[in-house]
């Protein structure tokens, strides 16, 4: 058993790991076997993460966060969580390998998963012209015609990225205005390769072995049209990945995990949540990182409130050491400082 397990390795998970490791909690990070580093692993240039005035490649940023966490003693496992038992004082995490890890506290930072269009032909054509990753697949559409479905930041980022390869990029959106940030909108509107198709929803994807076109339905008058193209990039948002905690943690109506005010405290003691899985609104790398900080500090305070004997068991020491005592005292004092202004 150990003190803290962090599930997830995006900006929230790794930032929580940096703080927890510096607080000497020796966190174990379950990073996922193929999706470690999170959503930024599928992006190219990140221009809005503070501290990188020239921008930084998404995968490079995540590798740096990982190294920073490891530098302070975080242990990282590249495996997936198969099952999670958060009900007791000791939390149990079962991995894909079958190994079981136990901890007194868990930070849940699993992010979100891409939303699908929900068309029957979508999965059959996935990989044959239907894609969720422009940076992975864009290069295969050199001199081709493609469509990006969606109207948010990621849709516009993908559309702009795809103009490097494709001759024409349609941006298909079901409304007549975009949600994306002003900077991204300006760039896309100025791009001669991007054509905007407003108020249309994808009703069908055509193609037997590979995509040959899409059928669109007008969201205003219901009229139907088709577009001939070779690639469809779906960027219609993402849903919080909560399937492992259903029935164990309370959710809010938006589908994210419920937390207490501005804290990361979930409906179960010792379980903290951070990043996109608690955020129905902002969903930025920097907000996720900040949310990871909150979770690490909350977990630290929680652990300090537990009986010293329990911590001694978790850290594998037979007796309550001076270090544990000192840390608990320090955490109580800092909590008192935080609480003081409102008292």
């Amino acid at each position, binding site marked *: 058993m150990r003190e803290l397990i962090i599930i997830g390795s995006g900006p929230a998970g790794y930032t929580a790991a940096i703080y927890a490791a510096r607080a000497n909690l020796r966190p174990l990070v379950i990073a996922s*076997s193929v999706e470690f580093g999170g959503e930024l692993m*599928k992006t190219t240039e990140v221009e809005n993460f503070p501290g990188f005035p020239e921008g930084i490649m998404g995968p490079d940023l995540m590798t740096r966060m990982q190294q920073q966490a490891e530098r302070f003693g975080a242990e990282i496992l590249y495996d997936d969580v198969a099952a999670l038992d958060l009900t007791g004082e000791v939390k149990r995490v079962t991995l894909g390998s079958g190994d079981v890890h136990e901890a007194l506290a868990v930070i849940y930072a699993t992010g979100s998963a891409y939303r699908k269009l929900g068309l029957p032909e979508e999965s059959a054509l*996935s*990989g044959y012209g239907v*894609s969720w990753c422009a*940076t992975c697949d864009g290069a295969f559409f050199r001199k081709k015609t493609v469509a990006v479905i969606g109207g948010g930041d990621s849709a516009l980022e993908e559309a702009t990225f795809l103009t490097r390869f494709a001759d024409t990029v349609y941006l298909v959106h079901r409304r007549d205005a975009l949600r994306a940030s002003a900077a991204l909108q300006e760039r896309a509107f100025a791009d001669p390769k991007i054509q905007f198709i407003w108020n249309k929803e994808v009703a069908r994807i055509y193609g037997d072995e590979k995509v040959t076109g899409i059928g669109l339905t007008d969201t205003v008058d219901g009229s139907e049209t088709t577009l001939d193209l*070779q690639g469809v990039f779906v960027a219609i948002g993402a849903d919080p990945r909560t399937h492992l905690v259903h029935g164990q943690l309370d959710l809010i109506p938006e589908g994210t995990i419920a937390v207490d005010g501005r804290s990361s405290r979930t409906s179960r003691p010792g379980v903290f949540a951070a990043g996109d899985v608690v955020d129905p609104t902002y969903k930025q790398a920097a907000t996720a990182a900040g949310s990871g900080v909150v979770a690490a500090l909350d977990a630290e305070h929680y652990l300090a409130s537990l009986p010293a004997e329990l911590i001694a068991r978790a850290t594998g020491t037979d007796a309550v050491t001076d270090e544990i005592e000192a840390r608990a005292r320090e955490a109580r004092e800092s909590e008192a400082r935080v609480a003081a202004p409102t008292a």
Partner: protein
Amino acid sequence: MSTKTVTDDSFATDVLQSEKPIMVDFWAEWCGPCRAVSPILDKIAEEHADKLSIVKLNVDDNPETAMKYGITSIPAMFVFKDGEIVKRVIGAKPKPALEADLAEFLA
């Protein structure tokens, strides 16, 4: 142990004439999910060396083969048997999911 590399030039000999079922991992340097799945494929190759060969083809360096097999999404992992594609797996997946996809070739 790292899996073997094949090219446009060696594809016919190494893959199409392979006696064992052989899986080709179509990948590229710039593809994050490709890098993520690579060590998993190495592990599967090591554990099932007697049943299934696994080789890698860099799609940037070998566009001819990538185009011939209509690759539009990577990682694409195609199993060839007697020169024909008998299984297509697309996208990085955890080891148990890949093993389930490949069960018929690993048994």
